[in-house]
């Protein structure tokens, strides 16, 4: 039976462990310590826990200053604020200044649920991906979260960690090794490749692969883990099937789907792509996470339908005379 763990608890535990083993980490919060769940860290290391109050620009600025002073700052806030509200601070004082700031954006996409459209970032990845050299990762389970947090602490440079706070099932063995910019192939199948980012979408992609298997459409499932650097090598090696579906808890503009579309256009032309994510013309809304995931078309049936359409279209294209059927090559 699969066990689940609360992701925020893993984040806090991991940071405690990293400080215990000698890393000079300081955590920063903007009056969301209760949400991020870093209270246990603050209790264990009160002098290393800094709450700046409701002031996200200052949150990121102070983190940059701490970095210049030799600390390893992990600054966390809701992903909507980490990206939209403190973008210039993160861009300039942290990234452009080539400092060592780890920015953690919690409650990505529909996981913001009852906080609603105002707090629902479907564009944080797009904004972050526009920043040169920034490492962008979204862990998919408690094991990858712990490993990526440790990698962030031990790798100089700015990071954006997209973090679902809520429980997520364990996908990986306890001692699984992770490398920056290397995706994980969770399952292999010959007809279509599902590339997913983050705990919610990896779970849905795996469920979609189960549905497709029942229909005789074997699917590869890749846990992207990293949006930047994107694991082009692993992705390209699984595009030989000719059909790719990207799955992201984000608008389809500027995030994983866009990154894979660019990769296909430049290095694997002819590959069919469908992007599962929030439509380009939609803002967030309020509701339960499950309702929102269905409402925005992020669930396994939507992924399976898109994959099915791609595979069927591919077969159709193969039976049609050359020069026709090109309209549906990119969805």
């Amino acid at each position, binding site marked *: 039976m699969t066990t689940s763990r609360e992701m925020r608890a893993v984040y806090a535990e991991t940071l405690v462990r990293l400080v215990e083993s000698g890393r000079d980490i*300081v955590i920063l919060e903007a009056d969301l310590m209760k949400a991020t769940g870093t209270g246990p860290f603050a209790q264990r290391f009160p*002098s*290393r826990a*800094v709450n*700046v*109050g409701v*002031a996200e*620009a*200052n949150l*990121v*600025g*102070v*983190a*940059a*200053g*701490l*970095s*210049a*002073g*030799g*600390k390893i*700052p992990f600054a966390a806030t809701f992903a909507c604020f980490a990206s939209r509200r403190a973008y*210039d*601070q993160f861009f*300039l*004082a942290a990234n*452009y*200044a*080539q400092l060592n700031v780890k920015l953690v954006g919690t409650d990505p996409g529909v996981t913001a649920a009852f906080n609603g459209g105002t707090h629902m970032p479907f564009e944080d990845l797009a904004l972050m991906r526009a920043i040169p050299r920034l490492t962008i990762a979204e862990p998919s389970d408690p094991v990858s979260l712990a490993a990526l947090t440790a990698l962030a602490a031990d790798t100089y440079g700015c990071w954006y960690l997209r973090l679902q706070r809520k429980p997520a099932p364990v996908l990986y063995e306890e001692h699984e090794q992770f490398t920056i910019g290397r995706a994980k192939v969770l399952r292999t199948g010959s007809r279509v490749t599902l590339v997913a980012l983050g705990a919610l979408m990896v779970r849905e992609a795996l469920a979609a692969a189960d549905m497709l298997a029942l229909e005789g459409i074997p699917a590869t499932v890749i846990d992207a883990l990293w949006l930047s650097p994107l694991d082009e090598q692993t992705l390209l090696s699984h595009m030989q099937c000719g059909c790719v579906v990207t799955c992201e808890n984000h608008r389809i503009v500027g995030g994983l789907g866009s990154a894979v579309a660019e990769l296909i256009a430049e290095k694997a032309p002819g590959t069919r792509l469908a992007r599962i994510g929030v439509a380009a013309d939609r803002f967030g809304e309020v509701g339960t996470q499950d309702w929102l995931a269905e409402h925005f078309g992020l669930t396994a049936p939507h992924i399976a339908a898109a994959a099915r359409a791609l595979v069927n279209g591919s077969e159709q294209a193969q039976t049609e005379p050359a020069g026709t059927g090109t309209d549906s090559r990119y969805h």
Partner: protein
Amino acid sequence: MNLSERSALERKAREIRGLTIEEIGYLGVGHIGGAMSIVDLLVLLYHRHMRIDPANPAWSDRDRLVLSKGHAGPALYAVLADKGFFPIDWLLTLNRGGTSLPSHCDRTKTPGVDMTTGSLGQGLSTAAGLALARAMDGLPGFVYCIIGDGESNEGQIWEAAMFAAHRRLSNLIVFADWNGMQIDGYTREVIDMDDITAKWTSFGWHACMVDGHDFEAMDAAIQEARERATPGREKPSIIILKTIKGKGCSFCEGQVSNHNMTYGIEQTMQALQALGVSPRLIPELLAQGR
């Protein structure tokens, strides 16, 4: 500060003004006004107060300076070059492609520049972070930060103000260059900041206002601010400097249009003559044997 010390600082400030006027004049355009208004402060800090080592810009125990009004970089570059952080002829490369001296301060490009700034309001937060890191490590010394009056319109200044006061960052000493002008006009007409000393005091800071072109007054204010590191008295300090934008630059002193202005070699020469200093940089001027 005795008379000869003050005279030496005044002489150095004239030299730095001359270098800065040449530096920008050789390019032909730049942020001359806000650079000139902080020259006296920079000279006082770098020649009397700051623990630095030009041969070792990355010395971990050094005092730090965050020039939050990053567009005044050319004045800081003149001070750093004169101190020996880098060759003085680098000043002729200001803003040219591939330069180490960009319009706004960049910690990755210029030896002696401690923080990247230019998007106004950000430098005070990073200075607070630097001060906090030093306090956490029990390191001595101070983090100095220079903000502008126009910059004080930024909300982030006041976020950082609340934070530094709450953390009692007494190793943080801020200067506000109160020259009364910003890009679009007089500060009182764009956004009137009213009683700025009272504002900072009410935010929990030790705040005072002095003449930013009076070395003795600034020196006394810095001494007073440093005493805020005494246990039981800890507060961050801000010294509001009444300054004149373009101070000491004959063709633009006190002009509201001097934020970013175009001028050439001829005006440069006039300004140097008015200051009573000789050219040190511009080949055309040096060739005239002056």
